[in-house]
């Protein structure tokens, strides 16, 4: 493929490096100093609620938007000064499935290939390959406005891959898709990553980040509030929890007393359920069952629950909410 003059300026271990990114829209500070780093060949998950600044960060990194402050380099090129070079190295698939509804699948990919200047012949061959890869070959000649939501997303992702970009930005790639389509898209993304592509993925779905990302940056109110490997983040919020559902909710207080000392912390009760952190200690279930049996309390269900990124997320965002309330008072 012709890629003359597009060799990265610096062969860095990081395909994406951003420091202190700031962006303000009127009175709203969308980003107030965001730093992000993605190692070449890894997946960085950008996690956060709506309006956290995820999309703004992606728009800056993909040269669609100029930051008010801070610096960012993608593939070693500065996103402001060397925007054209950055564009030759990236693919972008967004939450809006940016494909032309009045063209068919083949024409969409051919158009993108020609706009990457692959040449007409190469653009057509590449379009055919991608339609095969994304199981859209049967729909190649159908207008995109007849496609299902999942098909559009696949075509959108295919369009981002036309020039085989080494760095891929996926802005909420599976928002609004049914579970089958999500899994299919996850498989495609995993296949790309094993082929060496660096991916920055934004998502509101924590299981998605858990499944795909090597590292996760949690963004809220325009700042990164936590960053690390998913497992480390989960450990940070307290690891696993033992949950005991009682037959009679009225026993909860007695149960909590009986269970004191089983886990790594004080048991808490909620709606007839007693739960406590158990860290990585084994034997907690047997110990808990024995004690409750001795106390004569009937158990409906007992299980240890793995911490999820949901727990991480809720705990972290609750903390920032509390902080900002303190600031105000």
């Amino acid at each position, binding site marked *: 493929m012709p890629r003359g003059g597009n060799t990265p300026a610096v062969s860095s271990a990081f395909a994406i490096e951003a420091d202190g990114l700031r962006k303000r829209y009127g009175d709203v500070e969308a980003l107030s100093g965001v730093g992000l780093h993605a190692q070449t060949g890894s997946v960085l998950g950008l996690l956060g609620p709506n309006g956290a600044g995820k999309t703004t960060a992606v728009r800056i990194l993909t*040269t669609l938007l100029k930051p008010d402050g801070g610096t960012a380099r993608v593939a070693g090129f500065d996103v402001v000064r060397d925007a054209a070079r950055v564009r030759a190295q990236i693919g972008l698939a967004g939450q809006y499935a940016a494909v032309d509804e009045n063209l068919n699948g083949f024409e969409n990919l051919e158009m993108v290939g020609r706009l990457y200047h692959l040449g007409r012949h190469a653009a057509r061959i590449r379009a055919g390959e991608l339609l095969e890869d994304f199981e859209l070959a049967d729909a190649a000649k159908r207008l995109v406005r007849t496609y299902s939501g999942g098909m559009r997303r696949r075509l959108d992702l295919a369009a981002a891959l036309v020039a085989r970009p080494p760095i891929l930005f996926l802005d909420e790639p599976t928002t609004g898709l049914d579970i089958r389509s999500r899994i299919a898209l996850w498989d495609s993304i995993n296949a790309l990553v094993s082929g060496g592509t660096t991916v920055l993925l934004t998502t509101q779905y924590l299981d998605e980040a858990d499944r795909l990302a090597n590292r996760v940056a949690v963004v809220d109110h325009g700042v990164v509030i936590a960053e690390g490997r998913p497992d480390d983040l989960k450990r940070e919020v307290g690891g696993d929890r033992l949950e005991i559902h009682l037959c009679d909710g009225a026993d909860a207080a007695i149960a909590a007393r009986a269970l004191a000392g089983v886990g790594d912390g004080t048991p808490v009760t909620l709606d007839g359920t007693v739960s406590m952190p158990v860290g990585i200690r084994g034997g907690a279930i047997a110990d808990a069952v024995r004690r409750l049996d001795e106390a004569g309390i009937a158990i409906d269900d007992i299980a240890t629950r793995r911490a999820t990124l949901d727990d991480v997320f809720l705990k972290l965002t609750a903390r920032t909410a509390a902080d900002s309330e303190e600031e105000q008072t």
Partner: protein
Amino acid sequence: MNAVATELTDMWVLATRSVKRIPRQPDLLVGFTVQPIMFVLLFVYVFGGAIATPGLDYVDFLVPGIIVQSMVFGGFVTALGLSEDLKKGLMDRFRSLPMSRSAVLTGRTLADISTNVIQLVVMLVVGLIVGFDFKSGLPDIVAGIALCLLIGYAFSWVFAFIGLTASSPEAANAYGFTILFPLTFVSSAFVPVESMPSWLQPVAENNPFTIMVNAVRSLFIDTPAGNDVWLATLWSIAIALVFGALAIWRYRRVVAR
């Protein structure tokens, strides 16, 4: 590839894309074919008898005017298309590609020339069927056709500006027609300016659209031209330049969000 070749390829690729949508959206196709035919027939047979055009058959008077009007409105697909591209995120896709930035606009307006050619052919054929007669020589007719296309191209930039300013494709459509309809009707396109109330006549006479219609009329049916042909050309170029600049300014603003 050098910069000029890149620019031209990108413009061509995007123009092709814009043209392809026309036959695939039946309502657009109707807009480009049935609507102009309907206009010619309604004016010739319904209003024609009531409008006096001294020294000229009404159909000869009307056809140049109605053609120029359809050229002016031909660019509405550009407003529609740009507004949709913004709304649906395609603009972001284009801007993330290593392609020419301006091609997003120049490709659209280039595509409008081809749809204007279709309209022009349809209207001339219908005009000839209902009795329109060229009264000038071939060079003038060719010049008249070229002027029509230039006028259409200029107004494509007006529509590009409207499409990038309106909040939705529907709003773009509404703005376009609300602004341009009075312009085309308070002119010499459908009735002689002398038949209007005296207070309105200066408005109609100085309306650039009147100058454009008079110019095309002089080239098609040999009415006295005066400076109209040159003035119409200058007006078209001026409109293209001013609204081209405005469209580029809007484009930079809307995409920087």
